[in-house]
């Protein structure tokens, strides 16, 4: 009995403060964990759902909140700024970013600044600025806040980055669901889905899942051919062009005669 209590105390001391009271755990599911990009691909909607598992009655101190993030594969980028030189607008300065997510969506049950504390955001990289920084930023880029802001602004406008507050539906503090629409201009790779449950601004539990986005069929074939046999691909492209040019000319001659 005494030994058991001592072990529990030890366990409590070892665990970080946040997880010590983890009486609630997250269980999640995705409507699909693979997205195939075929010729008629026009975006895809993913249903992300889950439930909160409890050993004890739900705490009543703060309401339960849910955040869902979807992060696309990262790519290196150059951000350039135009300046006016002798009456002409031209690229003057640039900043290289080693990796920035090609897609990033955040869906929540409420306003982000109300349900998530600053320190928890830093730790779990949830909001867009932290998510970008988490992936990898050079010292040069870190000293250029204008450029990072521009990256966010442009990608928000392009709908590549999204913040959708209040789009996660939560029922009875237990079941939750949200739909994330993946755009048509997807980059191939693994999309990380992060699920977080929070109370009083603190993350209680989280889980990560992957959605594999792959080209399929004709798209796969052409992409592979272009990268593995570039010369052959070029020759085929030319042959197709030559044939189409001849066929059109022959067809019109036939129609006239």
């Amino acid at each position, binding site marked *: 009995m005494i030994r058991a209590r001592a072990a529990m105390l030890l366990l409590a001391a070892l665990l970080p403060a946040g997880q010590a009271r983890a009486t609630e755990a997250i269980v999640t599911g995705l409507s699909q964990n693979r997205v195939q*990009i*075929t*010729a*008629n*691909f*026009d*975006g895809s909607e993913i249903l992300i759902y889950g439930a909160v598992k409890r050993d004890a009655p739900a705490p009543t101190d703060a309401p339960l909140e849910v955040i869902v993030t979807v992060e696309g594969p990262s*790519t*290196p*980028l*150059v*951000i*350039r*700024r*135009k*300046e006016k030189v002798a*009456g*002409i*607008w*031209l*690229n003057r300065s*640039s900043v*290289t970013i080693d990796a920035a997510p090609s897609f990033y969506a955040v869906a929540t049950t409420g306003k982000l600044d109300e349900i998530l504390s600053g320190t928890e955001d830093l730790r779990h990289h949830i909001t867009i600025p932290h998510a970008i920084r988490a992936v990898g930023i050079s010292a040069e880029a870190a000293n250029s806040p*204008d*450029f990072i802001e*521009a*990256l966010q*602004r*442009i*990608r928000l406008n392009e709908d590549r980055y999204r913040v959708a507050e209040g789009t996660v539906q939560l029922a009875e503090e237990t079941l939750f669901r949200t739909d994330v629409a993946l755009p*048509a*201009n*997807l*980059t*191939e790779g693994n999309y990380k889905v992060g699920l977080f449950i929070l109370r009083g601004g603190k993350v209680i539990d989280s889980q990560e899942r992957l959605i594999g986005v792959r*080209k399929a069929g*004709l*798209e796969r074939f*052409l*992409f592979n051919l*272009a990268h593995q046999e*570039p*010369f052959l*691909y*070029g*020759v*085929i*492209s*030319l042959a*197709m*062009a*030559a044939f*189409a*040019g*001849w*066929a*059109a*000319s022959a067809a*019109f*001659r036939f129609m006239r005669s």
Partner: protein
Amino acid sequence: MQIYLPIAEVSINAFILLGLGGIVGFLSGMFGVGGGFLITPLLLFIGVPPGVAVATGANQVVASSISGVLVQMKRKAVDFRMGLVLLAGGFAGSWTGVQVFAWMTARGQVDLFVQLSYVLFLGLIGGMMFIESSRSLLRARRAGAAAPIRRAHVHTWVHGLPLKMKFRASGLYVSVLPPAAIGAVVGFLSAIMGVGGGFILVPAMIYLLGMPTKVVVGTSLFQIIFVTGFTTIMHAINSQTVDMLLAFLLIVGGVIGAQLGARMSTKLKAEQLRILLAILVLTVCFKIALDLLLMPSELFSITPVVLP
């Protein structure tokens, strides 16, 4: 009907692409220009990445040029000998252009360089053509619809150069040096601007070499086939930016447009044809110049880094 392009990695309506190809093909068949100077800005406008737009545009120009040249060949309006001389210069110029392009890319000013080249050459050629063709159109009207008397042989310093060769289809007996030099300039510019160079070649053949307008279109198309074919292969090998699916849709629209355009060109007078081409060239020039001069709404731009 949306279609996902495997190399460009964007989803675009297939009918927009067919229509775009058709319009450019029509102009190509009508004027004997490849249409590269139109297709590249148009593809950029609908959201195709720049590298893919340039490379795939070149591939589409190959098809519409072949389609157009076949019509001209039936009319015996292609001077193959002149075409080959131009082409020899063209490959040399293109090779040099690729080197300069790589050097400018390393210095990070390739966009500006390309835009300035567009403004300079489109403006120069378009302006010259517009002045000349409107003058001859006015002259024709004043003379009571009588065609202006054009002397077939105006002897200039060009005719004093060595290595003379007979170009029967053009009715010319001139040195091979001027056409080879023109071919080299065009090849150089096409490598830098990602175009076939027809809009420079056509006026150069008319005004500098004195070739008759009726063989100019066919001969220009003949040369463009090979220059853009070379460009396509180079891009496919170096940067994998040729999108075959995108090219296919543009080509289907383009070859049909080129056939219609080539037939339309026989219905218009040479002066009218030239003045229309001049207006088209000047419009594109004006648009690019505006982009350079007006303050852009977004000062920042994002470019993905191409991994080696």
